[in-house]
């Protein structure tokens, strides 16, 4: 006997119930009682298994070349699936960053001395060197929890909370989502909303946008430093909304489309970033650091206090008959800072039985923010015409490439170890300056290696 749900087959009428003389006694009812009793009794024997916990632990190491930022990020992720389909997820992440990061100033043909963000002390960068702030050191702990549960056959909800803390930053968030299944669960509509309230407490206080960095060693340093600072802390709020459709296209393909809207309000500056002011006066210092009373002028950056981002996302996963999976995605982001970005991501999961290999390629391209400038000119500085400016490299015209390979090995019993190695390259471009500045490398590449070891059980 076999099951056949689609093919037409010859049919035969089955014997209709005939009334026959009681040659045989009717044992069916007694048999029914006996079998139900057996199945009923044994029902109680089946032990209730209240779902299983599933854990993922991983450690990620990120290292930029030229002794810039290095990060270690252990991640602990636990998921419990309950009998009735509820899912509880708890994730714990630690970040520990060390190294030096660009402070935003341009390299110069003379050595440059900068005040540390705290106001305590200074650091000097050699001539022709990209100014890096070597005090950059941070660690972060983040904890998040999510609860997903079916409401009925067609609806599912998610509720979550998020908190992260580092010494100068606190982020607290709540999120909720609804999922609606249609089409025998071949289609899922997702609605998500997330709110976040962040508090930033910059070391040394919150710099005033486009105020001048106090001059190390100056007699009026304390007064100048205080004048460059406003409050000790500020806030930022973020609202994210997401609408998505997940569609099973056929037995091998699933597709997802998302639209996301993100609204940020409040203090959106990086308090540790500054801009150089470059001299436009014709003469020997044309294209050099603009000086006021014999000292270079550096200004703290200033960004708008709101940002609205729109994101479109499309992802397709395709399973080959041999068990391999192709996963490709494209993301487009546009915001009212003038940035738009394109991300192409491609993975191929090559099934090797007990193990798999997953090559990964990613390309990211971004256009700069309207207020991005690698430096300010002395004209802009003296006229005070500029109200918003940032030289943060992450807001510049940028291309980034990732090439990676992941290897996973199944140790049976739902256990897997995996190793991921990736090479990341980021290039920037933009205004190359004038005069002396043109001989400086204003847009150094960033090269980084990412290495991760993970274990699932």
């Amino acid at each position, binding site marked *: *006997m076999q099951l056949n749900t689609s093919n037409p087959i010859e*049919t035969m009428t*089955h014997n209709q119930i005939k009334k026959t003389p009681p*040659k*045989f006694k009717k044992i069916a009812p007694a048999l029914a009682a006996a079998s139900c009793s057996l199945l009923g009794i044994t029902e109680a024997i*089946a032990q209730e298994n209240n779902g299983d916990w599933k854990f993922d632990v991983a450690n990620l190491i990120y290292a930029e070349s030229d002794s810039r930022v290095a990060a270690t990020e252990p991640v602990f992720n636990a998921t419990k699936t309950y009998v009735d389909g509820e899912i509880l997820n708890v994730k714990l992440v630690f970040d520990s960053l060390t190294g030096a990061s660009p402070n935003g100033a341009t390299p110069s043909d003379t050595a440059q001395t900068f005040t540390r963000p705290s106001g305590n002390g200074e650091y000097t960068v050699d001539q022709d060197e990209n100014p890096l702030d070597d005090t950059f050191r941070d660690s*972060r702990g983040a904890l998040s929890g*999510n609860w997903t549960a079916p409401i009925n056959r067609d609806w599912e909800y998610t509720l979550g909370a998020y908190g992260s803390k580092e010494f100068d930053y606190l982020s607290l968030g709540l999120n909720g989502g609804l999922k609606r299944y249609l089409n025998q669960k071949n289609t899922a509509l997702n609605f998500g909303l997330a709110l976040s309230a962040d508090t930033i407490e910059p070391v040394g206080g919150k710099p005033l946008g486009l105020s001048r960095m106090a001059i190390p060693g100056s007699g009026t340093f304390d007064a100048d430093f205080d004048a460059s600072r406003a409050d000790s802390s500020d806030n930022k709020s973020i609202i994210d909304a997401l609408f998505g*459709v997940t569609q099973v296209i056929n037995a091998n393909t699933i597709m997802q489309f998302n639209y996301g809207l993100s609204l940020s309000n409040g203090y959106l500056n990086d308090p540790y970033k500054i801009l150089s002011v470059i001299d436009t006066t014709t003469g020997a210092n044309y294209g050099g650091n603009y000086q006021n009373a014999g000292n270079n002028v550096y200004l703290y950056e200033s960004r708008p206090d709101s940002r609205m981002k729109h994101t479109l996302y499309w992802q397709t996963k395709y399973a080959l008959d041999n068990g391999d999976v192709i996963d490709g995605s494209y993301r487009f982001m546009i915001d009212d800072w003038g940035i738009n970005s394109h991300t192409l991501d491609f993975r191929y999961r090559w099934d090797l039985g007990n193990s798999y290999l997953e090559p990964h390629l990613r390309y990211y391209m971004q256009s700069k923010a309207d207020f991005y400038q690698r430096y300010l000119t002395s004209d802009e500085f003296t006229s005070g015409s500029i109200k918003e400016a940032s030289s943060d490299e992450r807001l510049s015209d940028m291309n980034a490439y990732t090439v990676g390979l992941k290897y996973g090995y199944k140790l*049976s019993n739902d256990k897997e170890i995996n190793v991921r190695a990736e090479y990341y390259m980021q290039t920037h471009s933009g205004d190359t300056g004038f005069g002396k500045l043109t001989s400086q490398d204003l847009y150094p590449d960033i090269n980084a290696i990412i290495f991760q070891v993970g274990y699932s059980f």
Partner: protein
Amino acid sequence: MLNKYVLYAIGLTMSPYQTCLVEIPKLANPSNHSPPILSLKDQCWVGQFQAMASDCQVLLEGINQQRAEELLKLAAIETWRIEHKFSRYKAGNIMHQINHAYEKKVAVDNETTAILNFVDQCYQLSDGLFDVTAGVLRKIWHFDGSDNIPSDQEINNILPLIGWNKVHWKAPYIQLPNDMELDLGGIGKEYAVDKVCLLLQKRMSQIENCHILVNFGGDLACSGPRLNGEAWEVAVESYQDQKKAILKVKLSQGGIATSGDSRRFLLKEGIRYSHILNPKTGQSITNAPHAVSIAAPNCMQAGILSTMAMLQGSDAEDFLSAQEADFWVQR
């Protein structure tokens, strides 16, 4: 300052459909079967695995892949548990202990007690035609397709070793005379079908509405109609050609079981000796239908009735009519 904000993407839990293997922990797979395979056919999840020398199939509708994998895993683990616990061929299990006790009393657990009580009731209800001690007849009947029919002498020698009435069964103790054997092969598969079907239904939440059909080598049980409200269609294979379906049966509740000689028989002088053996005479039923399929409130009941119908030989139809159940006979 890294972007610390994460929006939890809530739509990413579905992975692309593919035929996938469902991992089963080694401990839950004592007989070392291949892992179950899940695939999707016409929006119906089809789970497949091997057990009890049969192709086992679980059809699931109305749930997502994650739940389908979960239920399939559960089905395989339960089936393999039953197989390992009650198979006559596994050393060390309860059947092995009972069959190798050499007239000592063996205490059995609750599940075995329930099964032995059921077996006892079946023996009484069938006037001894359904007898779990009849397995020793295998020692003289070898259904290998040959014409090797045992002699009357051989049969007479073995008959004293058959008879549930010779077994001392008083829960929770069972005591078997020397050289006698229990063999639950006649109900094990049907029991597993019902157990798995009930287990999956029980495992679903109140709000889920999963539609289940369990089919172990032609013995079936379902949770109710399909997702679209229609009955499951089940094809009964021909006794002559297992590839060929001769009958389409609709099933929207309960179970169906089939007994037949399509796979195991002896042929001598044109007579087909079916593997259904009469425990009272030790003889093969020669004039039984080729196959009997019967629908009943559960698979176990259908299985017992179909076996008993075969044992009635030429009276199979009359027996089945008296049970007032839907049945299909191939002669």
